[in-house]
């Protein structure tokens, strides 16, 4: 009896699930953010700055930024896999996307903890 275990790398399911989970995180953040901004209207520099110096808001915003990076990576990769047939070009675009998203995440950290 041949006992072969045929399993894939599972990154398909993992990415699919991660994209959904991060989507829900971002949706909740966006709605909460809009409600917070609306409750502070008309916005002044003090209230705007105050919003982002709050510890909870900083953590939530970082969570949003990291969710965005993961979510966007899955989405952009899907787009490139579907439309960019040339291997080298696709790889280059994927590398650029990773760099861009990592850059966004670090920029967010810089802005939040300055």
């Amino acid at each position, binding site marked *: 009896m041949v006992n072969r275990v045929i399993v894939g790398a599972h990154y398909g399911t993992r990415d699919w699930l991660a994209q959904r989970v991060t989507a829900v995180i971002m949706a909740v953040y966006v709605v909460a953010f809009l409600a917070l901004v609306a409750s502070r209207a008309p916005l002044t520099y003090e209230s705007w700055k105050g919003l982002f110096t709050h510890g909870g808001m900083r953590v939530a915003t970082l969570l949003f930024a990291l969710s965005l990076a993961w979510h*966007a990576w899955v*989405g*952009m990769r899907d*787009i490139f896999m579907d439309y960019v047939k040339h291997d080298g070009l696709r790889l280059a675009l994927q590398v650029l996307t990773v760099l*861009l998203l990592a850059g966004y995440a670090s920029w967010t950290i810089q802005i939040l903890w300055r």
Partner: protein
Amino acid sequence: MSSAAAKKQRPKYLSLPAILFQIRLPLPGWVSILHRLSGALLVFPFAAWALYLLDVSLRSEQGFSRIREYMGMPLAKLGLLVFLWAGCHHFCAGIRYLALDLNKGIALRPARISSAVVIVASLALTALFAAKLW
């Protein structure tokens, strides 16, 4: 087997005129391609733009008022309008996909109706936000 299908002119090429005038993309297809387009736009350039605005506006009092002024420019307003639409469409269509993943509304009729709702709702939300901001 001689039917209308056999008389059809084949092959059909996906030429630009064909895509523009002959092949009609169903409504859920429009929601799908616009979801991709809006997602790509949000990644670049809009996420970068949003981070730039956040950076400058949080840096100092002067930065905050400079962004205020900057956002009053017609070109910036136009950009913001596209940004708002991309965000609203991606949000609404995303909610629809989450529902579809949970097997809600996957029959043809509800799927068509919900895709029309997504397109209309995201345009209405964009108009609402735009009205608030102007």
